[in-house]
């Protein structure tokens, strides 16, 4: 409870803030792990489909285990699981990317602009956000998507984004409200800066970490949401994602037949990618919120505390 100051910030004023940021970045194991795992999966999604065979190509050996020609085995109809996995990764990541960008735009507009404008604009935007927040997402997605027989990956992404931006907008609104009353914003207003400039130069840069974590959340949500939707048979038609692979695996009785090579890889990649993004989010949280950062053992170790000091600090905070 006695830890309040951050030594790095007070003693190293001569160093530029960017070197401190880079050093903190490299020291943060969670962030590095998250970036490595996430990056590997993104690379697989980008490059995999270029080198693997056609995912719909049917071979004469159905439902065989990994090995030989097919590194991850084949599906019931003799399609290569590895090729499907590569294309599925690309599809799922595309959904995540589209929803991430749309959520960013929607939540920035309704959260930040509304909170900064104030007055009736804020009231109206906030009411709209809260209504979108309480209207249940997945049932709405199911209802909407059941009316459209041929769905593209774009449509599914747009529907997912429409039902999921509200939470981020609320978080951003809360933080913007506290920012707009800070002294430096008031000072620039007194100095006669234009409102648009205050928003773009004074407020938005301070929101970047929050934006980053909200987008990461949106991407996780979108990829899981799409997988759930596809698993229920309501996903994008005629395209490969991790969700559609699981749907076909379930329908092909992969579970009953013990074809683990069919249903384990897509689920595992989903879980790994989700975990990697969560790790990135944790480290963003720790960077934004020094209270969380200073309380971890890793942070104390980096202050070169000795073993005795560490245990003392632990006692002090118990």
């Amino acid at each position, binding site marked *: 409870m006695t830890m309040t100051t951050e030594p790095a910030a007070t003693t190293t004023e001569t160093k530029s803030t960017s070197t401190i940021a880079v050093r903190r970045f490299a020291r943060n194991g969670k962030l590095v792990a998250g970036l490595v795992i996430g990056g590997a999966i993104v690379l697989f999604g980008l490059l995999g489909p270029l080198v693997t065979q056609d995912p719909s190509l049917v071979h004469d050996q159905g439902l065989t285990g990994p090995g030989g020609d097919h590194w991850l085995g084949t599906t019931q109809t003799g399609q290569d699981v590895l090729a499907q996995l590569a294309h599925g990764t690309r599809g799922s990541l595309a959904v995540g990317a589209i929803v991430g960008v749309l959520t960013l735009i929607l939540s920035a507009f309704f959260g930040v602009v509304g909170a900064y404008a104030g007055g009736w604009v804020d009231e109206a935007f906030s009411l709209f956000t809260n209504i979108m927040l*309480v*209207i*249940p997402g997945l049932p709405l997605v199911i209802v909407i998507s059941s009316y459209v027989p041929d769905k593209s990956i774009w449509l599914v992404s747009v529907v997912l984004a429409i039902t999921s931006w509200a939470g981020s907008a609320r978080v951003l609104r809360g933080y913007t409200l506290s920012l707009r009353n800070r002294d430096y914003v008031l000072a620039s207003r007194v100095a006669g800066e234009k409102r648009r400039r205050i928003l773009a130069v004074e407020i938005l840069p301070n929101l970047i970490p929050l934006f980053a974590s909200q987008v990461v959340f949106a991407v996780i949500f979108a990829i899981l949401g799409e997988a759930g939707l596809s698993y229920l048979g309501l996903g994008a038609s005629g395209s490969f994602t991790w969700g559609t692979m699981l749907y076909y695996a379930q329908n092909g009785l992969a579970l009953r037949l013990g074809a683990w090579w069919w249903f384990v890889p897509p689920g595992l990649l*989903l879980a790994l990618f989700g975990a990697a993004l969560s790790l990135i989010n944790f480290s963003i949280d720790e960077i934004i919120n020094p209270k969380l950062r200073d*309380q971890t053992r890793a942070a104390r170790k980096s202050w070169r505390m000795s073993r005795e000091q560490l245990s003392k600090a632990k006692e002090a905070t118990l």
Partner: protein
Amino acid sequence: MRYLLRKLGFYLVALWAALTVNFFVPRLMPGDPVEILISKLGQRGPVTPQMRASVEALLGTDSGEPLWRQYVDYLGNLAHGDLGVSVTFFPASVGSIIEQTLPWTIGLIGLATIISFLAGVGLGAAAGWKRGSWLDNLIPVTTMFQSVPYFWLALILLFAFGSVWQLFPLNGGYDVYTVTPGWNGPFLGSVLYYGALPAITIVLSSVGGWMLGMRNMMVSTLSEDYLVTAEAKGLRPGRIMLRYAARNAILPSVSGFAISLGFVVAGSIVTEAVFSYPGIGSALLQSVGGNDYALMQGIFLVITLSVLGANLLVDLLYSVIDPRTRARA
């Protein structure tokens, strides 16, 4: 009082918005839903002009009436509790199907969510109180469970405990062959036995989020000045933890609980699909499969109502447990 009215007003507006979305979605979709539905019905048997008229009235396309008139009729029917007739379970009314399936969903998902919330908040408070303990180190593991897609976790557990070791039944809500539904011991026991595995999967996949949120709030609260004061006064650690730290740290979790209730009702769809549980989620999926728009709209309405109701309840509760919200209003 003002606070209460404000809240009630908000939920009325939200309810109206949900009803309007429900009304306009089928009317905004490309293609004529009536033709789609008629052609699907035609595959099963002859379509009488009365059926066509009822479908048109339901979906409200090209029946000659202006849109606002249909909208008023739609709201009027809802006010009378008239949700129409299901096509999939013809001739049962939508209301009776919801009545049959809703208790299953509320029993399973509701209980599992409450268990998960209580366990997560309790463990999170303990982890935040003793940072660096084994419980605190467990948190990354439980958040891993969160990033595992729920239905995949459920499928793997079902595969392991249903097919391989056969500890739990593979699907259904109770043993259809040996027990009769009603308030008797064997039936209730069977329901508990069949509900155990779905409940476990829900708790496993959601407890990590509660733990992490509570733990982080605990850490933030513990660095407040009033906790130093409490410690300086020499209060017992247990009292400091529960009455001073946890009581304040739990507030964001409570409002998160309200939001997650919506997610859980929505999540019930996937749970019930995996376990073939006879709840409202299965009914929604069946209605989607059978293009049963009346049932679909009815179920969406019920889900929305329950989410709004849960949020309202928690909002009211919140003003009791956190006096600051009352003062602000």
